């Protein structure tokens, strides 16, 4: 069994990277807007489908097609925030959450009507996988790129939040919106940046997921549901927590099933069993500070 350990770990890292790209956006948005963006997962589908339109239908090479689809997804992400979430920004967080649920089923339905219900492939030729460590590890180009991109983007996001002015503004507003206002930090700009970054990350996740599993209107649902639990697992609002939670879920799924500890029929339940068990031990998430109930 141990000879497949490397392949299982690799599978877990790849899944973890894709979940992380979605979870990072989710936790950033939660940090600043205080609600779980349920429609964030649909950005994965938007990114994947727009890439397919450019790359497969209008035969653009991969890089320009990717840039175009990422750009469009960012624009859609920012528009969604402007149209649907900005007006209710000060309301009780349940309201934007329910609006997000509405958006998610609306976008899925639109994709279904435009592209039809059956599965489309993202590109015509299928790529051979490279073999490493004399056959113990088989990885396709898109998997390698997905992992590399995820790591690079995570470091980039970390630096962005720590070093740049805009990054600090986002962190200030996330911790306390009124402080942000007193220092003249415009919440609008920061919201735009957060939704933009979130959409960028999910568009990339969508493209790689398209290479992994072809395209279907509901492709965003499975991965975003895992991202939700990764975000809470880490601790809502913490970037480090989201990354840790994502890879924990990715590896848990591949190792528990791969090594036969859990029957493969239960794979879909693993992320949530981990989440609920963890919430019993640390109700505020692995990286969260034990917030005092009185301080709400």
């Amino acid at each position: 069994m141990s000879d497949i350990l490397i392949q299982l770990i690799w599978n877990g890292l790849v899944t973890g990277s894709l979940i992380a790209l979605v979870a990072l956006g989710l936790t950033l948005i939660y940090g600043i807007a205080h609600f779980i963006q349920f429609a964030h997962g649909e950005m994965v589908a938007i990114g994947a489908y727009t890439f397919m339109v450019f790359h497969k239908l209008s035969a653009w090479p991969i890089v320009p097609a990717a840039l175009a689809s990422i750009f469009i997804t960012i624009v859609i992400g920012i528009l969604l925030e402007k149209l649907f979430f900005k007006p209710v920004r000060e309301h009780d967080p349940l309201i934007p959450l329910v609006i997000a649920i509405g958006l998610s089923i609306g976008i899925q339905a639109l994709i279904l009507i435009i592209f039809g219900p059956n599965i489309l492939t993202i590109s015509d030729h299928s790529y051979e996988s490279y073999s490493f460590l004399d056959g113990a590890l088989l990885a396709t180009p898109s998997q390698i790129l997905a992992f590399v991109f995820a790591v690079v983007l995570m470091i980039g996001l970390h630096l962005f939040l720590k070093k740049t002015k805009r990054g600090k503004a986002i962190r200030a507003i996330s911790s306390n919106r009124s402080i942000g206002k007193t220092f003249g930090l415009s919440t609008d700009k920061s919201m735009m940046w957060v939704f933009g970054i979130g959409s960028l990350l999910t568009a990339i996740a969508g493209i790689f997921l398209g290479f992994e599993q072809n395209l279907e209107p509901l492709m965003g649902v499975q991965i975003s549901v895992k991202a939700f639990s990764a975000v809470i697992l880490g601790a809502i609002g913490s970037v480090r927590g989201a990354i840790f939670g994502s890879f924990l879920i990715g590896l848990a799924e591949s190792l528990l099933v791969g090594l036969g500890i859990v029957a493969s029929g239960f794979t879909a339940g693993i992320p949530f069993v981990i989440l609920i068990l963890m919430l019993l031990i640390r109700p505020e998430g692995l990286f969260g500070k034990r917030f005092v109930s009185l301080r709400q």
Partner: protein
Amino acid sequence: MLEYLLSLLILTTIWTLLTQSYNLSFGLTGLFNLGHIIFYGIGAYTAAILNTDYGLQILPNLIIAAVVCGIVAAIFGLLTLRLSGHYLAIATLGAAMIAIVVATNWMDLTNGPLGIRGIDGPILFDLQITESWQILLLFLVIAGLCQWTLYKIFHSPFGRLQRAIQDDEIAARAVGKNTFLSKTWSLVLSSAFAGIAGAMYTHYRLFLDPTIFALPEIIFLILMIIVGGRGNFWGAILGTILVVIIGEIPRFFGFPDSIIGASRNILFAALLITTMFYRPKGLFTLFAKKAT
């Protein structure tokens, strides 16, 4: 056409009871539990298993389903009621996902994806009720009794305490209320009634499989309660009826089969978003009885 209308009315009767049960824990106590559909499914499976394995009929099944759901809810409450806000929402959504996986894999209990067939229709004191209008009448009586009970609970000191817990749980503790026990009771009661609705669904549909726990059902339930108005007793009923009607519109516009489901979801999405923007308290606020 009559047959179609009757079956729609029967399903609406079941769904109004399910929405009202959700209205107690989510609308009144403010427990944002995305997993409420679990109890609808557990109630349905309890009735299906009791009927096919032990030959019990609808009346005992309703009661047992309610009790089973109540017990599961109590345990579920112990695990999740310490959580609040988005943590509770995602943990309960996760529980619904686990329910689907368990229902699909636990072959010898639920017969997995093969589902359970050959369930008896409603049989009252060994009188078989087969005509749709008779089933509708019977379900109206059962749902009516449950709605009456829920009405009493809504407008009682217990109901008032639930509204206080939703507004500010700390303050409720500051006047000496055991809010944890009270929230657990709210969850247990709302799950029991959801179980009854599930058992009624089983004895009407006569077939059951794990898709009863699926995501579309969860979103459908949220839509009905949001449109109806959280905490609004009559609003929940009217909201359900409105959503069912809107859901059926695409069927009559001659849309091709493939996009009936999609166009229905677009209508639901639009309804959900506009309600939240302009009527966060629901479309039937004039029906909301002024506080007692």
